């Protein structure tokens, strides 16, 4: 690990996406090396290919290279795809007798409040495989009815007959006393040791039975596939000489070891995108922007999240594939506003963009793969933002005539407007959809977007970001230099963090401090187990939080407890409650210090402190970017086209300064510098755009 030795060691970040597997290697001196390789049906094959490709860049054999890798952090979409494609395990569910249908009731929630035609969600555990067993705890955790072990045994035998592969167990109030669930889990292991077991008090030891059962069932459904995959990967890596630590990126921006990740697949559902958000936070720290809105525009969707004081914001309100996942996850809000999102005129003669997408096949009309409907990418091409000859560095030619035809026949003619007006309208609408998506995660959550910088990733995110910045009064847009491998960069730089959560219901005014400290200690021990080995991290820091609310409120506010020691004192708690009133006011426009405050959950983040990752910076070159100028072309920033400078982004150097209107074309990413905006390439290769303030920004 010493930078002075002749043979460096590396840490790897590996992100497997649908099309590409991205890898980043970071050595002790802060040199980053990256590569991309096509993803494979068994993703571990693509990963090994990618590592071999990286090894080649250093002139090493695969095993010589892996030998020198101390840490691999992996972002994987295996669990996500299992749930999205409904290709998961056959699941059996054990519940408290009388409550086996909660997962189907969904607390009466339906995605459409008006349509009786909306079909039911795909049943990942049909009722025939849901069995209630006699047992019951009361609301204080006391046993009302002991567990009927014979009933559990009988149910498991039935599951085996039905060729069930995974068993989920969720009993009422198990978060207060997990004995019954644990015993049921033991009986499953006795009767059928081959079955994957998912206990609700392991997955989400937290009040609210529907949220818990849904998360636990999703865990059982996705767990076997993720576990098998990780075992394969670990084996392949081991066979090639890897002896370092292997972690999997978690939905909350932390990491867990392979064994824990396989058991808690429900915590890995955002493993892929989490890398991007983590990278944003990593970059933000280096460039001094601690409050960031990150946007990632892909082919079908536009993902938005918020980072405040370098901490990505979390949500426990997620739904994926119409299943509720109540684990804390990065709060990534997704709308159907990607490059492939289709523009169409609806029955009322109104122009709409998305949510339907042309995806990558057939893709936008300009891809020339048979798509005829106009997409956002077609509009961007027609307006001059995209270069038909330089898409993906020129690897793919775009058909401008096809884009024009699609916009004209599907939008301009039906609306009786010119093709250019139609393309501008598509752009206006998708830009507004994006701005509203940003409002959703900022103003609706009590954040003022004007205090944030906008970090844009994805191939087209930086085409539009200047517009969102203008809309929302954001002063700075950042397009990271590592944009094409952003998620992998996030993986390699991820904090080693494990989150623990326990429900504990008390009045804040009369809290049992000893009990709380004992519970925090137990949570810390459990977190240490999950983080495992501890080679990369030499020290651990525990951050404690409580979920507080006014009596009667149902939604809690997570408030950090500031302590100087390992113990929470009465004074600490008092300060925490005072902080709660302030946060409540900010989020909900009122506070009520006279009202009793309830404590609902304890949370603990255990963070393994790593050596600070120091990236190599390049000295500034001259300001004039002329060397990268490839020409000019007309670009529409409104009804009239303007001559914009076009730059080859791959030739831009730190220190180069570009005044808009301009377009920067680099492999996989296009950056539009709007008129009046100024872009500077910084020492890390990031493109920093200062946004012209036309007027006071408005929410």
């Amino acid at each position, binding site marked *: 690990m010493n930078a002075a030795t002749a043979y460096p060691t590396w840490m790897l970040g590996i992100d497997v996406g649908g099309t590409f597997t991205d890898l980043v290697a970071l050595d002790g001196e802060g040199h980053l090396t990256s590569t991309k390789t096509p993803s494979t049906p068994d993703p571990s094959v693509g990963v090994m290919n990618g590592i071999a490709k990286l090894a080649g860049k250093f002139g090493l054999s695969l095993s010589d290279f892996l030998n020198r890798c101390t840490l691999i952090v992996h972002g994987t979409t295996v669990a996500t795809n299992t749930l999205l494609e409904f290709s998961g395990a056959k699941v059996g569910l054990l519940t408290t007798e009388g409550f086996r249908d909660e997962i189907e009731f969904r607390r009466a929630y339906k995605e459409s409040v008006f349509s009786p035609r909306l079909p039911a969600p795909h049943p990942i555990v049909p009722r025939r495989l849901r069995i209630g067993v006699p047992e019951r705890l009361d609301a204080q955790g006391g046993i009302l009815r002991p567990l009927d072990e014979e009933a559990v045994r009988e149910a498991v035998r039935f599951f085996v007959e039905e060729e069930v592969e995974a068993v989920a167990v969720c009993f009422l109030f198990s978060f207060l006393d997990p004995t019954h669930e644990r015993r049921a889990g033991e009986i499953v292991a006795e009767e059928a040791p081959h079955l994957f077991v998912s206990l609700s008090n392991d997955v989400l030891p937290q009040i609210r039975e529907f949220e818990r059962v849904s998360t636990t069932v999703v865990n059982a459904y996705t767990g076997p596939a993720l576990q098998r995959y990780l075992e394969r990967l670990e084996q392949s890596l081991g066979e090639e000489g890897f002896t370092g630590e292997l972690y999997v990126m978690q939905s909350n921006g932390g990491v867990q070891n392979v064994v824990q990740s396989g058991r808690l697949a429900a915590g890995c559902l955002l493993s892929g995108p989490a890398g991007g958000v983590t990278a944003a936070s990593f970059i933000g720290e280096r460039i001094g922007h601690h409050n960031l809105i990150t946007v990632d525009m892909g082919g079908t969707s536009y993902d938005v999240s918020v980072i405040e004081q370098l901490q990505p914001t979390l949500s426990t309100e997620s739904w994926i594939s119409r299943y509720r996942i109540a684990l804390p996850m990065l709060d990534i809000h997704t709308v159907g506003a990607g490059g492939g999102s289709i523009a169409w005129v*609806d029955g*009322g003669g*109104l122009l709409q963009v998305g949510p339907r997408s042309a995806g990558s096949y057939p893709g936008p009309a300009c891809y020339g793969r048979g798509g005829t409907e106009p997409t956002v990418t077609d509009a961007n091409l027609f307006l001059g933002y995209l270069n038909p000859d330089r898409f993906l560095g020129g690897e793919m030619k775009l058909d401008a005539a096809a884009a024009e035809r699609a916009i004209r026949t599907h939008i301009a003619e039906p609306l009786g407007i010119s093709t250019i007006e139609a393309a501008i309208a598509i752009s206006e609408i998708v830009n507004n959809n994006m701005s509203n998506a940003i409002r959703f995660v900022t103003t609706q959550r009590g954040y003022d977007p004007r205090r944030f910088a906008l970090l844009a990733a994805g191939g087209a995110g930086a085409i539009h970001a200047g517009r969102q910045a203008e809309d929302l009064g954001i002063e700075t847009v950042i397009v990271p230099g590592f944009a094409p491998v952003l998620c992998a960069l996030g993986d390699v730089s991820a904090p080693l963090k494990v989150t623990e959560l326990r429900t504990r219901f008390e009045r804040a005014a009369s809290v049992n401090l000893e009990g709380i400290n004992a519970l925090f200690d137990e949570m810390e021990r459990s977190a240490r187990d999950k983080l495992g080995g501890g080679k990369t991290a030499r020290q651990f820091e525990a951050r404690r939080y409580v979920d507080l609310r006014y009596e009667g409120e149902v939604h809690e506010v997570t408030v950090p407890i500031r302590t100087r020691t390992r113990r929470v004192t009465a004074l600490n708690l008092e300060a925490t409650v005072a902080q709660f009133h302030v946060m409540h006011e900010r989020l909900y426009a009122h506070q009520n210090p006279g009202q009793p405050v309830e404590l609902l959950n304890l949370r603990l983040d255990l963070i393994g402190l790593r050596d600070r990752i120091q990236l190599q910076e390049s000295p500034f070159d001259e300001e004039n970017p002329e060397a990268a100028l490839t020409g000019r072309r007309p670009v529409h920033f409104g009804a009239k086209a303007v001559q914009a400078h076009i730059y080859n982004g791959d030739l831009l150097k730190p220190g180069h300064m570009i005044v808009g209107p301009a377009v920067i074309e680099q492999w996989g990413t296009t950056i539009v510098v709007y008129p009046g905006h100024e872009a500077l390439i910084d020492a890390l290769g990031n493109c920093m755009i200062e946004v012209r303030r036309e007027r006071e920004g408005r929410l």
Partner: protein
Amino acid sequence: MRTNPSDRILSQVVGGTLDSVAQEMSAVVTRTARSPLFNEAHDFTTGIFDLPGSQSRLVAQAPGCTLHLYAVVSAVDRLMEAFRYDLHPGDVLLVNDPYYGGSHSLDWTIVTPVFHGRKPMLLPAVRSHMGDNGGPVAGGYNPRSRDIWQDGLRIPPIKLYERGEKRRDVFEMILGNNRLAHWLEGDLDAMIGACKVAAERIQSLLERYGGDAVAEAVDSRIAYTEKRVREEIASWPDGTYTAETFADHDFQGMQDIQVRATVTVSGSDLAIDFTGSSPQVAGFVNSPLSNTTSFAFVAISTCCDEDIPINEGYMNPVTVTAPLGTVVNPKPPAPCGHATACVGAEIAEAVLLALSQCAPNRVGVNAHKLPLAYSHGQYEDGRPWVNLNFYGYTGGAGAAYGTDGWGLYPPVMTGVILPSIEMTELQYPSRVLQHEYKADFTGPGRWRGAPGLEVRIQHLADSRTSVMMAGVRHTTQGFCGAGAGPSNRVVVDEGRPGALEVPETAFNVGMAAGGVLAFHRSGGGGWGDPLDREAEAVLDDVLNGYVSVEHAFADYGVVIQSIGKKPVLDLPATIAERDRRRSS
């Protein structure tokens, strides 16, 4: 730099932003209100109105409880009538009187005006079901009510804030008349907070685009919705279609209360005439006109595409006629405390039954005949609690063309979220003993209703319960040849010597600590002839325990044999049986 986008595009930008403001209001209410009716059940609606002339118009809304929708429209109108010449920035208005536009007095509407120049231009509003409303019965449902005053506190249009100043005296008057004052103030703060947040956002929007542009954008958005709804209506064959349905009783001895809907489709116009419905009744099931309109509106909206923005334009093609003095448009002071369930359910059902004759594939079974039961008692420290026993009656989703009913509530009630059982047991001296689907307890059809429920709730402290039965004799109807749902049943103090199966109504029946309420709640109605249901789907229902082998045969003509323990479909016997029934 930026060109002015065309009006249509600006309309989308402004409209989309107003929608997101309405959603933000909803988020604020959900997260900060105290009573579980808001924060767990989401029994509220947020909306934004404009005021182009004397009439306010619904501009944007966030889906909460859908059946508040039109009631909030008329409540806002009445508030504007009352304060037209006395509106100032910083005012907060409140009304709950059903005869000032509304449904029942448990639903309160809060509105704040947002000014552009000197003119109130946009009006964010929240309408919510409150945990209590004073009056004779905790929780507000008083089956013995004989007039509007016995329904609960009657609040005409008043100001809670005047020019930004809280009217403490008015607050104290309201809190002093409420059993759940400890929740109520927080709930009102949540509603007001939501309106304040919206007012800030709207002010920004007005400054940014200017009043004229926003007004034009709103006009064009409403026109757009109207156009879409007219296109839907125009696709239905012209004609007059009539249906009638019945509420079991009015809780005061009057039985078989008729709701009759005559729907006339004429081009893109739709006329709904409730002439022929029963005269107003003594009991508290009278539906004020705005409640009637609200249910008609919800019925129509479930027949249209979901992507149509909900606003005033929805109602423009529709006229509603309801003769004064009838159960669908009572004269004051007729009581109407129960109108949002009974006869509201029948109003929606009658309209949909009529529409099913001209637009069968668009119509879903959407009634919610709720067997309501409210319990109350005292915590050990003497504070009162009111438990609405939500689990007992939340259910009954009906089928639609192409889709079985599923989950719990039908769309007419969705948006209402069931509280968590564990949270309820922490907050109330109550325990849920059972909450699951019950076999053979729903309307069969080519697509069946969601299964019915069997629910048992135990109250651990001494309690009193009022039960208001519905859907016992006149059960949820099936559509287009499907079967009706079974009868709801509620038993108070089940398993004890004084156990009472409630025929129509029970008022403040005492149960000693440990008493159990048992609910058998009908599932939804079906759509289409059960003999047309795919036999494999029936087998699936048998395997899942939604339908028994016996009922598979009786209701669906599907023959299922048991081979070993496994039920297996006998297809030849099924075909023969179904042919036999069709020809007989």
